């Protein structure tokens, strides 16, 4: 009988042409999709041409996906130049899947899309990849961005790589991988209305530290994970990298399959699951009914505490956005808390994609298409005093000094984003509290770090928002 394997081991074995692999094995694998963006694309393209020659062709023009998202809304000419490098490469290579910020034309700060449904631009690559049908169970996805691990929520192996690795894959369709051992994180019970997946992943990182999963797979399972929306599962796998994880995975269920069936360009894929008796190097269990809303205090994602314990912390700003906390479900959570109220501190909202932005205009507070007399998610946020920007990575990683929401002063911010190391959102001495969209919304209403249980009175339904 074959040795039991984990989902990640099975995916790697299948792509290495082997019957089985074990943790620690070094193997060459075939890559299904390679993604790059405006920050790492120009460097990757440069190495690709240097190594394979000026006339080289990418290994498969339908499997190299290019999504500009980082430095879009800036007047920095170098950033516009970098987008142009992507455009030229896409044209030269005949790349099929490219999502151009079509509003970048001349110089200066570009005027964003007027209508998010009428632009080729997508926004944050990790949200755009599944939306645009590039994510499927059982596949291997590489991206020149550490949060590429987000796509593991769909039962695939997805991980971040550098420019050199990406250039190698661009020319060969291959990469080498050391097979990671798997850590298992089990969540029991249904997600309570005051928690989101952000609280779960902060609990994990607080437990195992920012290096606790180094070189390892993080497998999130249990009925607690099954109870999450697909978007919230993406928050779990997204922050696997914040524990040092090589990748993160969730089980494939009907929610996953419905989404992928609706979106995928390729009609077939393979669903893998962990064999009974497979080996885990670590196993930890949480009861969701006992978990409290958490924050990660400056300056590390593992510096966790309960929101309640931080209630004396005065805030200067709130931020909702990024691949971690800029999804439509995140926006609905925030809007439900802010409805009919006013924020006490400047609150910046950045949709994770143009689809999210379109849904913010289209959907009501329950995630359903709004009736003529109902308010949209975006309207509710704006009426509460939030500043709603255009889809992009924006201030999650600081970026150029004219980036929307960037912390240009040593202020204190609470944010739905993923990292709070020194300088991450701009100023080296700014302090960032990472928290769930519910905790960020509650805090925006008081100006202090606030436990969302003070505002959440009943379950917040997100309907079919972001579900398929």
């Amino acid at each position, binding site marked *: 009988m074959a040795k039991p394997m984990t989902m990640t081991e099975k995916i790697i074995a299948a792509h290495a042409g082997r019957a089985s692999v074990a943790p620690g094995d070094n193997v060459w694998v075939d890559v299904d999709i390679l993604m790059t963006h405006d920050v790492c694309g120009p460097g990757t393209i440069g190495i690709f041409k240097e190594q394979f020659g000026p006339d080289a062709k990418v290994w498969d023009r339908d499997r190299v996906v290019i999504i500009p998202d980082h430095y879009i809304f800036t007047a920095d000419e170098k950033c516009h130049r*970098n987008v142009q490098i992507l455009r030229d490469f896409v044209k030269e290579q005949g790349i099929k899947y490219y999502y151009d910020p079509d509003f970048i034309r001349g110089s200066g700060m570009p005027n964003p899309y007027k209508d998010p449904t009428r632009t080729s631009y997508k926004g944050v690559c990790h949200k755009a990849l599944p939306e645009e049908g590039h994510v499927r169970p059982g596949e291997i996805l590489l991206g020149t961005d550490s949060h590429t691990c987000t796509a593991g929520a769909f039962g695939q192996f997805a991980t971040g*790589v550098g420019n050199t*690795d990406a250039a190698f894959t661009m020319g060969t369709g291959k990469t080498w991988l050391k097979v990671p051992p798997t850590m298992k994180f089990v969540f029991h019970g249904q997600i309570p209305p005051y928690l989101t997946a952000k609280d779960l992943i902060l609990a994990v990182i607080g437990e195992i530290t920012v290096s606790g999963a180094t070189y390892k797979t993080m497998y999130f399972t249990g009925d607690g994970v099954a109870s999450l929306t697909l978007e919230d599962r993406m928050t779990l796998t997204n922050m696997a990298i914040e524990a040092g994880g090589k990748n993160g995975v969730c089980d494939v269920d009907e929610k996953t399959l419905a989404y992928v069936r609706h979106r995928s360009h390729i009609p077939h894929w393979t669903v893998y699951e962990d064999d009974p008796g497979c080996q885990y190097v670590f196993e930890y269990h949480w009861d969701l009914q006992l978990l409290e809303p958490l924050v990660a205090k400056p300056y590390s994602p593992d510096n966790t505490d309960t929101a309640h314990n931080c209630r004396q912390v005065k805030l200067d700003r709130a931020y909702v956005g990024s691949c971690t906390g800029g999804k439509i479900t995140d926006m609905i959570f925030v809007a439900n808390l802010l409805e009919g109220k006013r924020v006490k501190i400047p609150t910046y909202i950045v949709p994770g994609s143009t689809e999210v932005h379109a849904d913010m205009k289209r959907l009501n507070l329950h995630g359903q298409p709004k009736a003529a007399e109902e308010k949209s998610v975006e309207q509710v946020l704006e009426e509460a005093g939030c500043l709603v920007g255009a889809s992009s990575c924006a201030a999650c990683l600081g970026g150029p000094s004219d980036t929307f929401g960037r912390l240009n002063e040593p202020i204190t911010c609470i944010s739905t984003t993923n990292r709070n190391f020194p300088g991450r959102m701009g100023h080296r001495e700014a302090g960032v509290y990472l928290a769930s969209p519910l905790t960020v919304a509650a805090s925006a209403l008081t100006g202090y770090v606030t436990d969302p249980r003070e505002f959440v009175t009943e379950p917040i339904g997100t309907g079919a928002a972001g579900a398929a």
Partner: protein
Amino acid sequence: MEHVISGKAFVLGDDIDTDQIIPAQYLAYNPNDPAERKYFGMYAMAGVPPAQSGLPQGHQRFVPEGQFKTQYTIVVAGRNFGCGSSREHAPLAMAEAGSKVVVAEFYARIFFRNCVNGGYLLPCECAHRLIDHIKTGDVCRVDLDAGELLDQTTGERFPLKPLGDVKPIIEAGGIFEYARRAGMLGGSRR
């Protein structure tokens, strides 16, 4: 690949993420343009908070203001060096500034992989907590054949962990040359 590297050490703490090694606002430079690439050297370690920059005393610049090169050939760090963003600009910036080797307790995996596959820096590991022993400015020698780091200023010696599985890639100078030698890419670099 050099097997013996000597020079001054620059000491950093734990969990130095790639945003500290090269802050995001400088990623607009294109590393493939030689005129722009040198700026990665200028801004290497620009995101490290001053009090943690150049331990134990801190407040020491890795690269002097307005210059492109560092005086520190060897970077010594604690746990989880290079965590966070996958940006290859991080090892590139350190190499562009003139560093040749980093010795940490252990690395975040993408940074380590970028060092190895891109052939920028030698990523050595040492089980000892070097940052409690070595001071910024100490003259050190990393000897791969002897498998040790010698602090010539204090005379202390520390064993380095073997490079292990990635040694052939490091010896080849990166993943492309390694793959060529293994016959995977066919022909020499154009």
